[in-house]
């Protein structure tokens, strides 16, 4: 198992490095941000001073060496926009996104399991058709539209929830999570349904039924466990999207997370903040992928055995 994990960790490190490098290079290809930070009629000399002070006058490979030298000292640079330490800004924003992502995914998975299993019990029955239509709709609705609609209905018309912000305790969580979980819940419901239909038709389920197991036990104990791996894979992908920052939801609801921070950093060409935020989320996704692999191995004996054999 340890060898399996080590191998997965090493193969996951490559994409992590590629992401950090890609963002570094692509950000700089957009040009020198002097125009954004200097007065409108700054002289050529002032622009050169700005570039030299921030290292933008060096070749890109030299900037990259400086960057990695800084990272080795845990120095991710300083924000051009706010003058704050870039890593501090990213670390401050990340937990808010993580909170949102964890609660959203847990609820989305719970909904998907209940609705997906229910639909799979009678394929093409009424429950399946209704849940299919709703989950397809949920998977397709744009976040932006849903968020504005949610504010209009629940904050303006009904007056039962705040429009946005994080000051209203538990009520602050309701709309952002509701909006954010709609799509993952819709997608996961489809996946769970498909996997459950396949699992419920398997010989081992027939054997369990023949032995007199209750329907609940058949679903929860026998079928769901075997239907879980594909759902876990899709849930992992969806969680990666949320950890990357639920940009639209964070922007609309004023959620102080890392998605909004990254978008602001891109628009303001605040390279240090962008790189710190990307590095942090890339590391988190790296950890998440390892966790998904462990989960996959625990759920699927074939993966576990293969890992054991490799060791």
């Amino acid at each position, binding site marked *: 198992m340890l060898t399996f994990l080590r191998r997965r960790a090493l193969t996951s490190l490559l994409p992590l490095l590629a992401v950090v490098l890609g963002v570094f290079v692509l950000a700089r290809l957009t040009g020198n941000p002097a125009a*954004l930070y200097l*007065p*409108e*009629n700054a002289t050529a000399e002032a622009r050169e001073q700005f570039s030299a002070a921030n290292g933008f006058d060096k070749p890109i490979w030299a900037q990259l060496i400086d960057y990695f030298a800084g990272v080795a000292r845990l120095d991710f640079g300083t924000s051009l*926009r706010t003058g704050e330490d870039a890593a501090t800004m990213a670390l401050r924003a990340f937990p808010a996104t993580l909170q949102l992502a964890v609660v959203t995914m847990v609820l989305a998975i719970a909904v998907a399991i209940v609705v997906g299993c229910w639909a799979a019990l009678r394929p093409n029955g009424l429950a399946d058709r209704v849940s299919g239509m709703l989950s397809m709709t949920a998977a397709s609705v744009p976040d932006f539209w849903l968020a*504005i609609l949610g504010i209009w209905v629940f904050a303006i018309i009904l007056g039962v929830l705040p429009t946005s*912000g*994080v000051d209203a305790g538990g009520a602050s969580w309701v709309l952002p999570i509701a909006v954010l979980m709609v799509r993952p819940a819709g997608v996961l419901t489809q996946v769970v349904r498909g996997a459950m239909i396949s699992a419920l038709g398997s010989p081992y389920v027939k054997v369990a039924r023949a032995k007199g197991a209750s329907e609940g036990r058949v679903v929860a104990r026998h079928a769901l*466990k075997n239907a879980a791996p594909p759902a876990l894979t899709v849930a992992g992908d969806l969680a990666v999207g949320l950890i990357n920052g639920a940009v639209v939801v964070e922007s609309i609801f*004023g959620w102080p997370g890392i998605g909004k921070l990254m978008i602001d950093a891109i628009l303001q060409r605040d390279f240090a903040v962008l790189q710190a935020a990307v590095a942090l989320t890339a590391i988190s996704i790296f950890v998440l992928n390892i966790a998904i692999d462990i989960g996959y191995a625990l759920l699927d004996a074939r993966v576990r055995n293969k890992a054991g054999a490799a060791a």
Partner: protein
Amino acid sequence: MNKTRTTALIAASAALSVIASGCSVANSGGNGSGAASGTLRIVLPQEPPTLEPCEASLTATGVVTRSNITEPLLERNPTSGALEPKLATEWTQTEPTLWTFKLRPGVKFSDGSEFTSEDAVKAIDRTANNTTLACNVQGYVFGQTGPLTLAAPDATTVTIKTQEADPLLPLRVSFIEMTKRDISTTEKVREPIGTGPFKIASWTAGQKLTLSSWDGYWGAKPAYTTAEYQWREEGTVRAAMVVNGEADVATNLGADDGAGDTAVQYPNNETTALRFTNDQAPLNDIRVRQAIDMLIDRDGIITSLFGGLGKPASQLIGPGVIGYNEAMTPTKYDPAAAKALVDAAKADGVPVGTQFRIIGRTSQFPKIAESIELMQSAFAQAGLNAKIEMMDTSAQLKYQLRPFVPDAGPIALMVMHGNQAGDAAFTVGQYFATDGAQSTGGTPDLDAKIKAAAPLTDAARQAAYADVFKTQTDAVRGFAFLANMEAVLARAKTVDYTPDAATGDEMRLADFKPKA
């Protein structure tokens, strides 16, 4: 493994973790508590990147900092345009190149230290002369003045010597916020100490900024003792916060953001226009530029897209700014005449079918993309070939500011210019002079007129700049003006405040009062 049990366990843990943290969000500074009595809640479109006073000409910074945390020596009345005393009680031009300012006695910074002429000299030097800091105010206001020579003959007197006679110096000084003598001259300061009626109480980055009034302020105590700023990018959300009672004031709204009966309309000093590259076909022919000007349906755009917010523009400044030419009128929408001009240019060998780009900045003003699409459609019907490119701010600035992108081809660039100073000098030098930071055209005659207008005062100044605007339109036609823009502010019924032309750039908290 019992999957159901595991799932239930995970769900319970997540729910418990939220409950255990009191449902508080990380990076939120803990749970807030609604509006306390005496608190004014304002929602802005974006968080101030910094409260550095020398960056106060940046809207996102100035709207919080100016006249709230820090104050200038004098300030411009946004309605009358007159300069009024603030931390200076009088100012005189003692010599053609020398101005003397007498400071208000008894003024203190919010940390309790005295405000003296030494502080004023350091603040002006830091803002206007310091090239290391490269403050935004420096470029916008002092770009063409050269270094100032400053002195503090006594504790309440400041003298400023200019390179050349500068009648606008007091106006320029009104853009400088006063800071303490020991403020850094090598780094910008995110949270300054000033003499204003408010000081920074707390700033939870990304979430909320709170200012509180302090005892010892030299002027009248503000009606609200605390101001809470939040920021939401979406205008509809900002408006909804006021409608829903979660905020008292929301700024920078569009006509269709849903502010309802909380909406208050006001002019925001901004003018929108297309700026042409005059040296490349087909835009190098003045008939083509005139045709484009005639093809802009200003009334239609303002009515159908801006929701009636704005007025058709005839020049790059709005009424009320010194130099505004009352005799000029917006170009009439006349597709037939425009087509005739294009045809005439074509007959003379101008390649009118050559594609040019209309470049716009995403979200620069409400409905910018739709406005440009409407223009492109009209241009096509007259036989012109325009392609739309929308860019973010950083990319668009490469086309707006010198040095321009080389070999960029013919461009009609959508610009939005705000003249907060109230004097045409802050517009024409940048946009019309041949070497202006945002100019793509110009003629020796126009340059001479701009230079000649600079030292004039009163009626002569007004007439000279009015002539500059007319000459630019008649002889150069480097722009097709769209609208003098207006904005909407949402104001709760419990708040008494009248927005003015400066509101978008400088929202003075002391002007807000609870409604009786």
